[in-house]
């Protein structure tokens, strides 16, 4: 084969020069600045240069410029690809900014009261500065724990029903209403739990376990959905292997299917806990408010962290800043609890996940 007969079938078209991206960015920022300054000076009502507008116009100019350059040099298909890359990366960046700001706000403002007292003191007999969220942390752990105890068995059994047994109208109804249940507003769940407890214990009742029930209404559908997905991806081969060994169905489900899906289920339960641990409205209604520690969820009011955060903010005393600081630290602790639970779930996943 001689080189003379070499055809050029596969060469890519010219690609964009390396210097293009930074240059274009600089030009876009400059252009945006001048356009906005011009706009600002022509408009008497615009008092200052709007950074939002500058950034917006700069990003749009940059994207369009880059797209056009690519389109001219590299052709339509490649430029579409590049445009999408810019858009997708941009969407990611845009979405991450507020989320980082949020996390940063909580950490920054929560640092003020992030001290030993916050974890060892309740608010009993505390006026103004000092005090802590011990009672609220206990309450949140107990109520969330109870809600988990209620929701996980029901949720997992329902998911098992849907994946392993469910057919026909009942299964379809359950699937549909689980979807509906995901949409129950949290305040409605709180009102419901309250009404149910009034029927049993009389009016004005406040109990930690009521909060757990309200949260369960919110948590169960999340557990079901997550577990269902996990059970579905357990390969049928494993079920068949177990049946072929003469293992009845219920043992197959409990001893083969569930352990195989355990890692995923743990993560799903974790997501469900995260979904409810920060709920405020239902707990305000049914678990109530107290400054003291209460270990018994079946008697009297029980404080929880979200309620702590909310009431600290909403009912500030005359020394407002100490209340606000406590609120943010409460939020920070809530986030940390979720994070620790997440790490635990990851460890569980790691430990139980199918090895190989």
């Amino acid at each position: 084969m001689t080189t003379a007969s070499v055809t050029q079938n596969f060469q890519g078209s010219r690609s964009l020069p390396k210097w293009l991206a930074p240059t274009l960015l600089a030009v876009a920022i400059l252009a945006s600045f001048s356009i906005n300054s011009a706009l600002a000076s022509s408009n008497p009502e615009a008092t200052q240069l709007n950074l939002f507008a500058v950034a917006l116009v700069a990003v749009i100019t940059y994207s369009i410029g880059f797209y056009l350059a690519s389109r001219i040099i590299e052709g339509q298909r490649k430029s579409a690809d590049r445009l999408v890359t810019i858009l997708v990366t941009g969407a990611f960046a845009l979405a991450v900014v507020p989320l980082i700001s949020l996390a940063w706000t909580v950490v920054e403002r929560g640092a003020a009261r992030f001290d030993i007292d916050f974890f060892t003191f309740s608010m009993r007999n505390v006026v103004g500065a000092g005090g802590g969220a011990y009672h609220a942390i206990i309450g949140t752990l107990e109520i969330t724990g109870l809600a988990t105890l209620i929701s996980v068995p029901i949720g997992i059994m329902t998911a098992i029903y849907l994946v392993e047994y469910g057919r026909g109208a009942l299964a379809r109804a359950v699937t549909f209403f689980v979807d509906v249940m995901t949409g129950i507003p949290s305040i409605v769940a709180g009102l419901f739990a309250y009404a149910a407890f009034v029927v049993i214990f009389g009016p004005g009742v406040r109990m930690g376990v009521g909060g757990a029930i309200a949260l369960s209404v919110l948590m169960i559908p999340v557990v079901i959905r997550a577990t269902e997905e996990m059970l579905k991806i357990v390969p049928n081969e494993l079920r068949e292997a177990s049946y072929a060994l003469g293992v009845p169905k219920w043992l197959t489900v409990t001893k083969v299917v569930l352990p195989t899906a355990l890692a995923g289920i743990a993560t799903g339960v974790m997501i469900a806990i995260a979904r409810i641990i920060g709920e405020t409205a239902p707990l305000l209604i049914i678990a109530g408010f107290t400054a003291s520690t209460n270990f018994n969820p079946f008697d009297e009011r029980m404080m929880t962290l979200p309620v702590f955060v909310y009431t600290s903010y909403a009912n500030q005393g005359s020394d407002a800043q100490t209340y606000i600081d406590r609120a943010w630290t409460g939020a920070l602790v809530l986030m940390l609890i979720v994070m620790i639970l997440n790490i635990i779930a990851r460890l569980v996943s790691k430990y139980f996940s199918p090895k190989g």
Partner: protein
Amino acid sequence: GAANEETATESTLSGTISGSGASSMGSGQEAWIAEFQIANPNVTINYDPSGSGAGREAFTAGGVVFAGTDSYWKDEELALEFAACAPGTKPWEFPVWISPIAVIFNLEGVDSLNLDAATVAGIFAGEITMWNDDAITSQNPDLDLPELSITAVHRSDDSGTTKNFTNYLEKTAEAIWTAGTIETWPTEYGGEGAKGTSGVVDAVTAGNGTIGYADASKAGDLGTVAIKVGDGYVSFSAEAASKVIEASSLVEGRESYDLAYKIARDTTESGVYPIVLVSYLTGCNEYLDAEVATLVKAYASYIISEQGQATAASAGGTAPISASLREKAQAIIDAIK
């Protein structure tokens, strides 16, 4: 238990009672409960600042044994049965928390304004919309007010603060403020809604050209309005607020244990600040449970004691109730069974 929850005691009182109601006196209850519990470590008192209406409702239903309320019992409410009280008996009530409501604003370079009732009503009713409106400048000749639109911030949640504030507007500027005494802000008046006292304060702080009304203790560094009473302008203060009770009369046709006041909003006496919030404590004259009665008696006595009122004053910037009112209240408390 928490590190702060263990103390030795000489007090013989023990048990738990719960109350709920007005969030306005939340910080006062917090301070009272703290001091009372320090003196009586085996007692736990809960106060759920869930709102006056919720508090009265919970008390009626028997869910709590005492309540705090920003407005006194309505006649039709008194006609109901009270589940925590002995059958047929009615609740007592008396004021324990008198708090000035400040009209706060955020306007660069201005920290005090003089306004009369009609102007305040005009602003909150959405009729006066600019800071350099004649109605405002004429009362504040020394100030250079900008051409800036006014954002009037009100409570978006139902509240006693709104009720007392609009009651003042109704009584003093009926021609402009036609909505009457309300809890829910009328849509047609516009303005900006914010949740809770802290929401209003934060909204006023965050904006420029904003004005709102809030519990005076939360006014912070914001500018406040001096209200025209008689011929002079009065800034809010505890003393100016407490005077208004003296100028007011009891609601007619109530039992002797029901000290409900009709506040004299339209007073012209100088040095009286008429925009106040009066919150009542209420409970049973005869409890079903004697232990509860003992605790309520002790706690209520503490609240109206000189020390209790001083505690409230420092916690919430309120005006202490007068000695004569304390005497009347103590008599009611002593009669609780």
